[in-house]
C-alpha cells in the first residue's frame, strides 16, 4: 500500500470533489415526489399568553393542506434535556416541558405556535399571515440577574427562573474559601462570555416521508447525530418505534453544535407527513436560524485567583450565571456544568477549586453547546484572570503560567476540579510557541506599529480541554441520561473493497478521507478501496454523533476495534487457505503470510474466500467478513495548547486588527495533518470572531436586535490573518488505540482570551489603565474604555 495514504498523511479530501462541482446533496437540495411545504407561525413577542388561535381562515387559503397548533401535540411528549443536574441542596434541576409547538404560552421571539402545510412555500406563508393568534404580551425576562430576582416566570409551573444552583466540587468549597481568605494576593475579575449564534452556513432543513403501507417514516434532516435524533423522537417526543423511523443526515453544511439537538420542526414535519400522506419539507431562512437555532455561551462570571507571595496559585473560585434560554435544549445543562466546572483547574497544579453555576431561564432562544461548549468559558475565565494577576503582581504572564504548570512527570494528574489528565507537556508547548511566533522580534514590531500610530499588543494563553466525550460510566454518575460510546461496522465485500459504517457524522471534518486512512494503515491496503458510510440510521449500527471533538477519539477507536476483529478473522481464513496455524499468520502491506515462509495470500483473496467458502471449516469460521465494534472510552482525552497573538489597536477609532495568531497544540497523534490544521483554522476564526466581532443582543423586550447578517458580525476574510498552526508537540493519548485527542474545538477555546490579553497589553503599552474589556471588543467598546482610562 502506498504509505502516503495511511496514518499521518495529508491526503486531500475525497469529499471535496462533489462539493467543488456543485453535486453535494444537502437536505434542501433534495425533493420528494408529491412534496409539500411547511412554514411556521412564530411569536413576535418574547413572553406572552396564547389566548386563542383561529386557524379557520388559514385553512381555507389556496393550497393549504393542514394547519397545526400546540393543541395538536398536547398528548405527545416533550423534547428532553439529556443531562440531569442536581443543585447544591440535592434538589434535581427544573425541567419544564418543551413541546413541539408552543402551547399556553410563547416564551421567546421565534417560538413556533402554529404551522401551515401547503402545496408551496409562498402559499404556506400567505396562510401563516391569515392565522389569527390572540397573544397577550407579558413583560419579558431577558437579563439573568433580573430573572433570578423576578416574581414572574418564564415557566409559571416551576415557580422560579432558576433551573439549578450547582456547586463543583461542593466538598471543596470551604477549603477554597479559606485559601482565598488567607492568600497573599487575590485577583478578581468580572466578565461576560458573550452570547453567540453558531451560524452554520446551511440553515436547518427537515423533510419527512411517511409510508402508509408499512407504517414507516423517513426523516431527512440537518443533523450532527441522526441516531440521537431518532432516539429522542422515538423515546420522548412522538413515540414512533425506532424500527419504524429512519433518520438520514445527508451532506450537512456545518453544525458547530447547533445541529446536535433535536428541534420541534423535525417532529412537526413527521406528524404532518403522516396526517396528509405526502412528504413535507421545511427549510429555515436565516432569520429563523437566528431566532431558533440553539445559541452558545452567554455566561456572566466572577472569578477570583488566590496566590502566595511567589505567585503560586492557591485557589480559583468562580461564580457563574449561565443563560439556558426559554427551554432546556438537549445538552444545555451539561454545558455550563460538567463541560465547564471540571475544566477550572486549567493547566495548573492549583490545589483548590470551587465553581458555582446558576442556570437561568430567560425569554430568549435556548442556549446550548457551541464549538467548545463550556471549555471556552472555563479557559476564558482562567486565562483572563491569570493575565490580570500577572500584571497586578508585576510578573511576566508566561512566567506566571509556567510557574504553575503541571509538569510532564506528574501524569496521570488528578486535577482539583475532578478530572484525571492522562498526558501533556505544557512547557514544551510554550517553548514551541515562543519559537514559532518569533517572540524575540516583538519589540521591533511594536516600534514599527508605533510609527504608524498604532498600539501593538502581545497576548498569550494556555488551555486544556476535555474531549473524546465521553466514558459512559463516568458521565452516568454525573447525570448523563445517555451513553457516550460510538460504533462502527467494517464490511469487507467479496471483491475486496470495504464499506465502513460509522456513527460519527461528517459535516466538514473530513471523515470520508481520514477514517479510511486508519483502516488502510491497519490492513495495508489502498485507502481508495475503502468508503465511509455515515448519516443514515438504516445503514449504521448505532452512533452518538459528532460533537465535543469526539469523532476520531471515540468513533475512530470503534473503527480500530472493528478492523482488529476483521484482521483476526481474516488471519483465520488465511491460515486455513495456507494450511497454517492462525498464530503464525502475519499481515503486512495487505498480504497475509506464514511467518518464516514464502507462503502468502493477499487481502483480496481472503475477502473472496470469506464469501465463496468452498472447503471452508464452517465449524470454526463463519462465512462473510464483517465486524462491528462499540467503543466506550476509558477517560476523556486532554488536548492542550499554547497560543499567542499580536494585535494592533488604532487609538483614534478603537479598531483592533489581529496581526498574527499562533496556535501550538498537543492533539496526541495526528491522522491527517492537513485536516487537523484546517480544524484549528476554523476554530481560530470563530474564536477571533467571538473576541472582536460577534454578539447576540436582545433588547429589554426580548427582541433580537442582531437577527441577520446586517447586524450580527460574521467574521469575513478581511477580518482575519493567516494563522501559524503547529502540532509538532503531540503526546499520545494513553487510553485510546489511536493515541488521538481531538482537534475540532481547540481554536475556538484557545483564541478568545489570547486576543483579549493582547488588546489589554496594547492599551496598557499606550499608557491606558484598562484592565478588562468585555467581548466582543468592538471599536466602540475599545474606544470607550480608552476614554475612561
Amino acid at each position, binding site marked *: 500500500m502506498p504509505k502516503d495514504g495511511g496514518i499521518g498523511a495529508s491526503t486531500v479530501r475525497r469529499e471535496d470533489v462533489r462539493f467543488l462541482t456543485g453535486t453535494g446533496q444537502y437536505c434542501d437540495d433534495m425533493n420528494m415526489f408529491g412534496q409539500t411545504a411547511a412554514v411556521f407561525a412564530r411569536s413576535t413577542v418574547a413572553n406572552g399568553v396564547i389566548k386563542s388561535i383561529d386557524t379557520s381562515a388559514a385553512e381555507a387559503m389556496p393550497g393549504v393542506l393542514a394547519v397545526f397548533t400546540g393543541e395538536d401535540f398536547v398528548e405527545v411528549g416533550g423534547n428532553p434535556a439529556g443531562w440531569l443536574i442536581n443543585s447544591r441542596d440535592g434538589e434535581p434541576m427544573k425541567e419544564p416541558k418543551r413541546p413541539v409547538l408552543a402551547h399556553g404560552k410563547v416564551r421567546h421571539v421565534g417560538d413556533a405556535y402554529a404551522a401551515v402545510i401547503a402545496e408551496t412555500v*409562498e402559499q404556506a*406563508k400567505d396562510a401563516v*399571515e391569515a392565522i389569527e393568534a390572540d397573544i397577550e404580551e407579558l413583560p419579558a425576562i431577558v437579563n439573568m440577574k433580573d430573572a433570578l430576582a423576578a416574581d414572574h416566570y418564564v415557566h409559571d409551573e416551576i415557580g422560579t427562573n432558576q433551573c439549578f444552583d450547582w456547586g463543583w466540587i461542593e466538598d471543596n468549597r470551604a477549603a477554597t474559601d479559606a485559601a482565598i481568605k488567607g492568600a497573599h494576593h487575590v485577583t478578581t475579575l468580572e466578565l461576560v462570555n458573550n452570547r453567540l449564534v453558531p451560524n452554520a452556513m446551511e440553515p436547518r432543513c427537515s423533510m419527512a416521508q411517511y409510508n402508509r403501507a408499512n407504517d414507516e417514516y423517513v426523516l431527512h434532516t440537518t443533523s450532527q447525530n441522526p441516531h440521537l435524533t431518532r432516539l429522542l423522537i422515538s423515546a420522548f417526543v412522538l413515540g414512533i418505534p425506532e424500527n419504524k423511523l429512519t433518520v438520514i443526515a445527508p451532506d450537512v453544511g456545518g453544525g458547530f453544535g447547533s445541529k446536535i439537538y433535536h428541534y420541534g420542526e423535525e417532529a412537526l414535519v413527521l406528524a404532518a407527513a403522516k396526517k396528509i400522506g405526502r412528504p413535507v419539507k421545511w427549510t429555515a431562512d436565516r*432569520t429563523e436560524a437566528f431566532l431558533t437555532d440553539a445559541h452558545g455561551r452567554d455566561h456572566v462570571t466572577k472569578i477570583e485567583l488566590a496566590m502566595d507571595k511567589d505567585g503560586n496559585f492557591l485557589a480559583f473560585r468562580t461564580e457563574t450565571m449561565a443563560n439556558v434560554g426559554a427551554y432546556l435544549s438537549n445538552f444545555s445543562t451539561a454545558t455550563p456544568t460538567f463541560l465547564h466546572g471540571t475544566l477550572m483547574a486549567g493547566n495548573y497544579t492549583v490545589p483548590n477549586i470551587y465553581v458555582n453555576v446558576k442556570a437561568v431561564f430567560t425569554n430568549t432562544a435556548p442556549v446550548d453547546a457551541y464549538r467548545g461548549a463550556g471549555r471556552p468559558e472555563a479557559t476564558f475565565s482562567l486565562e483572563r484572570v491569570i493575565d490580570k494577576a500577572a500584571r497586578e503582581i508585576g510578573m511576566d504572564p508566561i512566567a506566571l503560567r509556567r510557574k504553575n504548570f503541571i509538569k510532564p512527570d506528574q501524569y496521570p494528574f488528578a486535577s482539583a476540579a475532578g478530572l484525571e489528565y492522562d498526558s501533556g507537556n505544557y512547557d514544551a508547548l510554550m517553548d514551541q510557541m515562543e519559537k514559532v511566533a518569533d517572540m524575540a522580534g516583538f519589540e521591533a514590531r511594536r516600534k514599527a506599529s508605533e510609527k504608524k500610530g498604532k498600539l501593538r499588543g502581545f497576548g498569550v494563553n494556555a488551555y486544556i480541554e476535555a474531549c473524546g466525550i465521553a466514558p459512559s460510566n463516568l458521565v452516568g454518575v454525573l447525570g448523563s441520561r445517555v451513553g457516550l460510546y460510538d460504533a462502527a461496522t467494517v464490511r469487507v465485500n467479496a471483491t475486496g473493497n470495504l464499506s465502513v459504517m460509522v456513527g460519527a457524522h461528517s459535516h466538514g471534518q473530513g471523515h470520508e478521507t481520514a477514517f479510511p486512512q486508519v483502516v488502510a494503515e491497519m490492513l495495508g491496503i489502498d485507502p481508495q478501496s475503502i468508503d465511509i458510510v455515515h448519516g443514515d440510521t438504516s445503514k449504521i449500527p448505532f452512533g452518538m454523533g459528532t460533537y465535543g471533538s469526539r469523532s476520531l477519539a471515540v468513533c475512530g477507536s470503534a473503527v480500530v476495534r472493528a478492523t482488529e476483529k476483521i484482521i483476526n478473522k481474516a488471519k483465520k481464513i488465511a491460515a486455513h487457505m495456507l494450511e497454517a496455524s492462525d498464530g503464525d499468520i502475519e499481515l503486512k502491506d495487505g498480504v497475509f503470510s506464514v511467518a518464516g515462509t514464502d507462503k502468502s495470500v493477499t487481502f483480496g483473496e481472503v475477502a473472496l474466500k470469506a464469501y465463496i467458502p468452498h472447503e471452508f471449516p464452517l465449524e470454526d469460521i463463519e462465512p462473510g467478513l464483517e465486524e462491528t465494534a462499540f467503543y466506550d472510552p476509558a477517560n476523556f482525552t486532554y488536548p492542550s495548547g499554547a497560543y499567542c497573538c499580536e494585535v494592533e489597536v488604532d487609538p*483614534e*477609532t478603537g*479598531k483592533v486588527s489581529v496581526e498574527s495568531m499562533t496556535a501550538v497544540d498537543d492533539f496526541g497523534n495526528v491522522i491527517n495533518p492537513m485536516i487537523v490544521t484546517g480544524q484549528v483554522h476554523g476554530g481560530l476564526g470563530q474564536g477571533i470572531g467571538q473576541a472582536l*466581532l460577534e*454578539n447576540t*443582543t436582545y433588547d429589554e423586550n426580548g427582541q433580537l*436586535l*442582531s437577527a441577520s*447578517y*446586517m*447586524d*450580527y*458580525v*460574521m467574521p469575513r476574510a478581511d*477580518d482575519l490573518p493567516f494563522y501559524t498552526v503547529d502540532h509538532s508537540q503531540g503526546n499520545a493519548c494513553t487510553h485510546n488505540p489511536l493515541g488521538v485527542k481531538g482537534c475540532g474545538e481547540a481554536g475556538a477555546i484557545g483564541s478568545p482570551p489570547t486576543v483579549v490579553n493582547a488588546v489589554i497589553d496594547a492599551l496598557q503599552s499606550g499608557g491606558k489603565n484598562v484592565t478588562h474589556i468585555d467581548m466582543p471588543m*468592538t*471599536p*466602540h467598546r475599545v*474606544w*470607550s474604555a480608552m476614554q475612561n482610562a
Partner: protein
Amino acid sequence: MYAFDIERPATVAEAVAALSNEDAQALGGGQTLIPTLKQRLASPEKLVSLTGVAEMKGISSAGGVLTIGGGTTHDDVAADGSYKALSELAVNIGDPAVRSRGTIGGSLANNDPSACYPAAALASGATIVTNTREIAADDYFVGLFETALDEGEIITAVKFPIPEKANYQKFVQPASRFALVGVFVAKTADGVRVAVTGASNEGVHRWTAAEDALSKDFSAGALEGLSVSADDLIADLHGSAEYRAHLVAVMTKRAVAAAS
C-alpha cells in the same frame, strides 16, 4: 415574497409609463429592494426593472463634469477612475457581487442613512437628473430614506462637478459593511464641502463648521478642536451617538489628509 409582475422597459419613456400605475415600483439593481421583498415588507403589484434601459447606463465626462447614468452599476463607477475619490468610494460599496448589480440611481433614490453615494453627491454638489427635472443635491436629500423625488420619478443620471481634491473615508459597520460613519470631503474653487453619512438620524448632511475651517485652510490641522454634537446622531448596536460624533471628526481629518 408576495406575487407581482415584472416589466422590463427599454427606454426611460416606457419606464415612466409603466410606473404611472400607483402600485408599481421601480427596481434598480435590487440589492436593497429584493431583500425587503423577501421579508414581505413591501407588496408592489408590479416591479419596473430599469436594468434594461440602455440610455440610463454609462459614464461621460465633459467640461469638468462627470455624468453617470442612473442605471450605472457601482462596478462601472469603480472602474471609471475619472473622478478618483468617487471611484474609490464605489469600490468599497457592498461586495463585488453587489457592485455588479447595484446602481447609483438606486442608491440615491433609496437614500439609506448609511449609504455611501449620498455623501459623495452632497459633498460634490452633484445634480440629480430625473425624467422631469434637475435637482441640486442640497435640495434632494430630505431625510431618512426620504428624497425630493416624486412618485414614479426616475433618476436618469447624476452630474458630478469634479473637484480639485476630494476623498471619502468610510468607517464600516462591520456586519452590513455600510458606513458606520462616512465622510466625503470635496475641495473646489468655491470652497470645501463636507458631507457625513451613517451618523445622523436625519440622514446624510453637511458639516458646515468643518467646511468653513477647511475653506480657509485645507489641512487636517484646521479641524483641531472642532467637534460635532452627538445630539440626533444614530445610536445602535455598533456605536453610540458619542462614538459616531467622535468618528465624524476622525474620518474628516483622514479624508482631508488623503484628499487628492
